[in-house]
């Protein structure tokens, strides 16, 4: 379902992991829908486009998401040339060079839509010498509450398969695994149906996963599907795998088939405090306040407002923050859902230990950090932590375990820098 176009879009130049883009428009410019307004600076940067046609009314210095960055304000007016009309002719990607396909993705500013918004073009060009053999399409939702990938796979199974075919061609391999959680039967059925129509030499398969957070995290996925352990602090490419989430595959297809820049995305709006939760297609730059309004308003003051998922997302109190490429969802959680309580002493229940997917003993790491014994904490391998926050979630003593493990990790990294 599409949300209406906002009057004014707030489009930050940093919507992804990496370096910010540089604005190429100035105040007063008239831009068309999908026009480039921020140019990527280097490989780890991503192009930014106008989500709506209209006038650049201002370029402000903003501090969204704790980062100082330029934000372009566009007031909507004029015709929607990109999304308004259906494209008259599709690009024939099968007869195009992979370099051209890759360039299309780069130009369109595609970034990972699972939450980290890593530049997709960079992900598809692994460093020289690395042999990639498998593409994993992550259809296992990265976190509870978020259901946007499920909706996309369910509604556009054929498009997803086509997107995978394009991606396989770009990487130059033939094997792809679509990982879907086993509680998403309709999506699994739809994808399997769509796979029937592909060529036999393309080895695309659907694998069911137990639906259990943090199943959708890259390290876990690669281990469950291929039994490969990605060493800590190494990207999955080093293990011969590229992991791309289902929503991003959809965006890749749109970029390649009709040169559509990434100017909108599906986000999950959820939580007990919003009147009309659901998955919505939203233009980048739409502010939270507008989303609240379009979703029927709030039932009361939420206990937490979270951008992203409840386990890894960030809590915000600024309702003027815009939706960006990395915004997988916006949650309006009630106090009942957050279950925050006073932190008390550890009762050694072992829950944090049994839940940790990395085999850590979070209570020991946290205990050492609390005693400021950072060397001890570092010896417990905080670098293996994938920041899933499961430990903090289960702890009955409500101890901020993942946060403290994060501090242990930071001190470890600081140590490395100091020692050179």
């Amino acid at each position, binding site marked *: 379902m599409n949300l209406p176009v906002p009057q004014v879009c707030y489009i930050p130049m940093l919507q992804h992991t990496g370096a910010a883009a540089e604005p190429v428009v100035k105040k007063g410019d008239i831009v068309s829908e999908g026009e480039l307004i921020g140019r990527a600076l280097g490989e780890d940067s991503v192009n930014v486009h106008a989500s709506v046609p209209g006038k650049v009314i201002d370029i402000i210095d903003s501090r969204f998401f704790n980062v100082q960055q330029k934000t372009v304000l566009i007031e909507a007016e004029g015709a929607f040339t990109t999304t308004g009309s259906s494209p008259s002719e599709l690009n024939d990607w099968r007869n195009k060079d992979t370099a051209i396909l890759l360039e299309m993705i780069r130009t369109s500013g595609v970034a990972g839509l699972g939450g980290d918004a890593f530049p997709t073009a960079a992900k598809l060009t692994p460093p020289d010498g690395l042999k990639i053999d498998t593409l994993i399409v992550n259809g296992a939702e990265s976190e509870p509450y978020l259901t946007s990938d499920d909706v996309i796979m369910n509604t556009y199974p054929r498009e997803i398969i086509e997107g995978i075919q394009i991606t396989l061609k770009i990487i130059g391999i033939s094997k792809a695994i679509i990982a879907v959680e086993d509680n998403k039967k309709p999506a699994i059925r739809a994808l399997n149906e769509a796979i029937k129509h592909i060529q036999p030499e393309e080895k695309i398969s659907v694998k069911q996963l137990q639906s259990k957070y943090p199943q959708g995290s890259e390290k876990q996925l690669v281990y469950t599907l291929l039994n490969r352990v990605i060493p800590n602090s190494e990207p999955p490419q080093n293990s011969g795998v590229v992991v791309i989430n289902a929503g991003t595959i959809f965006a890749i297809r749109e970029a390649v088939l009709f040169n559509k820049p990434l100017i909108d995305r599906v986000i999950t709006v959820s939580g007990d405090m919003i009147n009309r939760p659901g998955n919505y297609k939203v233009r980048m730059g739409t502010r939270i306040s507008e989303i609240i309004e379009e979703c029927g308003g709030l039932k009361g003051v939420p206990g937490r407002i979270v951008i992203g998922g409840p386990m890894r997302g960030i809590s915000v109190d600024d309702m003027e923050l815009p939706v960006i490429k990395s915004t997988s969802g916006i949650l309006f959680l009630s106090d009942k859902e957050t279950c925050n309580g006073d932190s008390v002493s550890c009762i050694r229940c072992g829950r944090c230990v049994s839940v940790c997917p990395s085999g850590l003993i979070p209570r020991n790491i946290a205990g050492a950090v609390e005693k400021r014994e950072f060397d001890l904490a570092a010896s417990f391998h905080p670098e293996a932590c994938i920041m899933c926050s499961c430990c903090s979630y289960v702890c009955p003593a409500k101890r901020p375990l*993942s946060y403290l493990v994060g501090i242990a990790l930071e001190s470890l990294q600081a140590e490395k820098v100091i020692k050179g």
Partner: protein
Amino acid sequence: MPQVQEKSDLISSPPHIKSGDSVKSIMWTVAAVLMFPAAFSVYIFGLQATLVTGVCVISGIAAEFLCQILMRRKIKVLDGSSVITGLLLGMSVPPHIPLWIPALGTVFAVVVFKEFFGGLGANIFNPALAGRAFIMLLQPLEMSSNWHLFPNGSVIANKLVTAGNFTSEAFLSITGATPLTILKNGEKFALDYNFSIENIYDFFITNNILQSLIIGNAGGCIGETSALLIFAGGLFLMWRKIISWHIPVSFIGTMALAAYIYYYNTGNPLPGFLTLIHVFSGGLFLGAFFMATDTVTTPLSARGLIVFGIGCGLITFLIRIIGGYTEGVMFAILFMNAMVPLIDRLFKPKVFGV
């Protein structure tokens, strides 16, 4: 739209949702589950049993409260842990014990073995067991007598007629004890009163001793009586994921296996039967489901828990069957409590990706 900006505590580090369980909810659930065998003991032993457990619970709460005031600590009585300590201690003494003894034990348990160690979470020994060990050493006689002499309706003392081979003197010394004491001193009884050990087994069988142990109308400590109720409570706690299966299964399993192997190899005619008596009597169920599963004083990892349970089972077996004491559950758990740091060091989960 409500003004979200007015709320001051909106920002926090992730996760933004947490499980509904808290230390308080866990403790009070355990306490509530313990109420069932405690209530049943009133039915078996009469009001005396309520008095004992009641005095223990109240003295536990009072001791913790006073202690936290005097030590200028945060008042945490409401977390329910001393209620559990009081209940457990009250349930592990003989029903007709003078009240001051279990009361003293509870105070000692809470003050010395919990608060002096730094409060809930920092204690090394299970407070209830440590308190019980204390009064056991202080008043050994009171702690190993004062059993209930079921006047009518109970199985063990009731059927004088069926006890054909026994002199009335022998009969009294048997019925005044718990089944475990009888097993333990069987040879001696047999010698003293001039009958064979088989007579005792016959006595157990004709009196449906297993059934009594499972239902709860056999001699024993207040809460040791109904294996069935304790088992049901344990299952409930497992279903609520408050305790895990590891310790109860490995503890009882090891104990049973060791006992069976022992009886079998010593040529006993009824190895299975005696093993079952051991399993269902004494504090094994209460210990395995409610005391050895105290998270504070047990290992962290699943493998560690199993090792802990095996250790408890072996030591219980050694004390009960080979050693000199009738009941070994308490010392077994206390001993294994002391082993926890070692077990934790030896049985760590494997770090992923290292």
